[in-house]
């Protein structure tokens, strides 16, 4: 694969991932050397209460240490801001728990390098291989697919997937605004309304290698409610902006 002229930042949000984080970073670095990518890994430590910070500091990667726990959205937002400020061309989100194998990285990067998409989402469901998540979670994902399709007219099969690559224009948009809590489904509506080209590619995901999911069963109702509200409001907000100003962003493809 080409793309050595692209500067890539892999943002890995980390909250209590002391068991998995070292492997995740090592795997990314292995792929980096294998494909000769111009790539940096940025681990965002979101006030982990375990030993994560000490582990991260010994790894071959960049890291941000948030002084206040912000949650996944706030941590990712820090990563995208970093990518924007330090002039990266591509930003990739990869979870810190080892769910996203680094071997799949070229699949999400390739469409960005070739200029075929602004946002690439690694999807578990396009080809039914690898870890498929639990039944309840899949039910929720079906609901989000329906919600996204009715709002932006495009079906995203795996809207909760946190394995995604953004080009410079998308980085600029997320630099300005990124949802706080459970950002994945909401940001898809945000991208759709910015008329970004969203592409889903099939990837194989693993079961988490350590730690616990940020979404427990008790939180899932709140999760559905929050995401629905967030999605609807970001839709209304951007629609109004579009109506009043004609455009929803100052970010153009060359920024």
């Amino acid at each position: 694969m080409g793309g050595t002229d692209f500067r890539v930042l892999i943002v890995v949000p980390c909250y209590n991932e002391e068991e998995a984080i070292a492997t995740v970073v090592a795997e990314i670095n292995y792929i980096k050397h294998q494909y000769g990518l111009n790539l940096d890994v940025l681990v965002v430590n979101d006030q982990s209460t375990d030993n994560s910070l000490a582990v991260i500091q010994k790894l071959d990667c960049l890291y941000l240490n948030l002084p206040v726990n912000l949650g996944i959205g706030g941590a990712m937002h820090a990563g995208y801001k970093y990518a924007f400020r330090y002039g990266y061309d591509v930003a990739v989100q990869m979870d810190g728990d080892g769910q996203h194998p680094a071997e799949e990285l070229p699949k999400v990067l390739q469409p960005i390098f070739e200029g075929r998409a602004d946002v690439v989402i690694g999807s578990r469901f396009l080809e039914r291989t690898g870890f498929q998540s639990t039944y309840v979670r899949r039910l929720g994902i079906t609901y989000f697919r329906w919600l996204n399709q009715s709002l932006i007219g495009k079906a995203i099969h795996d809207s909760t997937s946190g394995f995604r690559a953004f080009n410079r224009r998308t980085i600029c948009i997320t630099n300005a605004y990124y949802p706080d809590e459970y950002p994945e489904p909401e940001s898809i509506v945000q991208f759709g309304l910015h008329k970004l080209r969203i592409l889903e590619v099939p990837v194989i995901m693993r079961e988490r290698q350590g730690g616990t999911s940020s979404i427990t069963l008790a939180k899932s109702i709140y999760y559905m409610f929050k995401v629905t509200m967030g999605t609807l409001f970001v839709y209304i907000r951007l629609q109004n902006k579009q109506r009043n100003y004609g455009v929803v962003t100052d970010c153009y493809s060359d920024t």
Partner: protein
Amino acid sequence: MESLPIVIQILSLSGALGFMYFIARLIIKGKLREEYSFIWIACTIILIVFSIWRKGLEQISLALGVFYPPSLIFLAAIFAIIIFLVHLSVVNSKMQQSVKELTHEIAFLKKELAQLREHDKLESLGTPLVTES
């Protein structure tokens, strides 16, 4: 409803004035920001008005067709409290947004500081080597 007796009128007037003094003290000491004090000052003024204007509540209730005047107090008080709670939520949301921005900036600064320190350390380690050769 009987008009309020003079004792309770004096009591409520002094209570309202005491409350106003308390709010003023908080502002002077810098423990309460002026923008939040407006609503409390408005509340005390209303209290004072009704302490002096004894028949006021009855007359307003009659004019509005409210049968039992105290229920008007509850209605107004609950309404005011809800409005103020919404206001506090807005303030809180704004604060949360600011905290997020500040957290990001601090994280970036901490990272740059660490890099600068690392750089300095390397330089100071390098200096003796140069003088030796």
